[in-house]
């Protein structure tokens, strides 16, 4: 492997964190030891009870109680140490966040330098000019046909339209209604009559 990446330097903070963590480990080991003692004293008390030496059993239990208070104390110490460690680690994260923000804002400043308002105005003006030019050129090209030419084109269009219409008339088959085969039926059901009346009335209002 290349090893191009350099190992970060060991700072004072690193040593401090390591120190704290080592202390924490020591407290943890101490707790383990106390736990072992607790278990042992419990066993001892049991054995004394079996052999009937109540005083001794009581003594062992007292010792056990004392160790228990020690254990509780170390618990709070451990909590303190761990809190300190996490506070330091969190602060380091904060520092790096601030560093990142700073760099980001510097980059943003650099970019803003390029984006000053005069420049923008100038560029916008230039763009507007260019657009104007484009429009003029377009107009000139569109107006290049003379009035006569335009009329000729219109005439041609009308002729073409006439031709197409004529073609349509020739080709379209005329559909006529077929002759009724039976006699017309005069008697219609009465119900339909009011409907017819209604239909007639609709266009009437004036």
């Amino acid at each position: 492997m290349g090893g191009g990446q350099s190992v970060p330097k060991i700072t004072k903070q690193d040593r401090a964190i390591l120190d704290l963590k080592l202390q924490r480990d020591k407290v943890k080991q101490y707790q383990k030891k106390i736990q072992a003692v607790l278990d042992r004293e419990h066993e001892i008390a049991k054995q004394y009870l079996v052999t009937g030496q109540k005083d001794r059993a009581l003594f062992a239990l007292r010792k056990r109680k004392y160790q228990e208070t020690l254990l509780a104390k170390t618990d709070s110490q451990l909590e303190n140490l761990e809190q300190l460690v996490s506070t330091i680690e969190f602060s380091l994260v904060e520092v790096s966040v601030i560093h990142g923000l700073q760099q980001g804002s510097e980059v943003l400043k650099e970019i803003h330098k390029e984006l000053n308002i005069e420049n923008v105005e100038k560029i916008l003006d230039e763009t507007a000019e260019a657009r104007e030019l484009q429009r003029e050129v377009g107009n000139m090209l569109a107006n290049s046909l003379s009035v006569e030419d335009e009329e000729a084109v219109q005439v041609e269009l009308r002729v073409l339209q006439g031709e197409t219409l004529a073609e349509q008339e020739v080709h379209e088959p005329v559909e006529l209604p077929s002759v009724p085969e039976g006699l017309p039926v005069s008697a219609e059901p009465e119900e339909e009559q009011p409907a017819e009346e209604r239909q007639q009335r609709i266009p009437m209002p004036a």
Partner: protein
Amino acid sequence: MSLSPHTTPSGNLLLGFLLPSIHAAPPFFTQQPNPATQAIVTEQWSRLILSYARHRQLFTVRVEDAEVTGGEWDEILRNDRINRRLRSSHLAYILEQMAAKNQLVYDPPKQSRSALLYWRTPEEWAEVLHEWASTTGQLNTILTFYEIIEPPVPSPLSGIPMQILRKAIHILTKTNRAQIIAVADGEGVRFLPGNAGK
């Protein structure tokens, strides 16, 4: 007599260990006079010892384990179903052969009664270690050795012997993937992202 594999009673472990069928063969427990035969027996025993160690996360084996009962190795060094056990001299011989193949190292050195098993080589342990540090988000954090050996949450590295851990970290420092920090009270290590994946 037909030989068959046998699963050990699991005890407090979730899964029992599947003993190979050869473990039920009485000659397997006896040192063979023919060197070719013995080579096969040794090979089988080394494989069995390493896979059993991996299964139960055992790191040390002692010649003594073949002499006394009640140890962690009883399940493979003895087979009560065929009334056989491995003699301590035979175990010592097997360990010697394994040491020659770098499958274990004597620990402490300069004796041959107790050994550290390399069911992962230090190089493999280095990878496991780095993998663990990066998946648990502990890169760039300073860790104590104690914290790695006895983490609050069990990890693949729980209980790893200090010697193997040191070797693995040393391997990682060569590729700039770890850095050892020493203070008056002890030592710590910082794992770095490194350039292995690139």
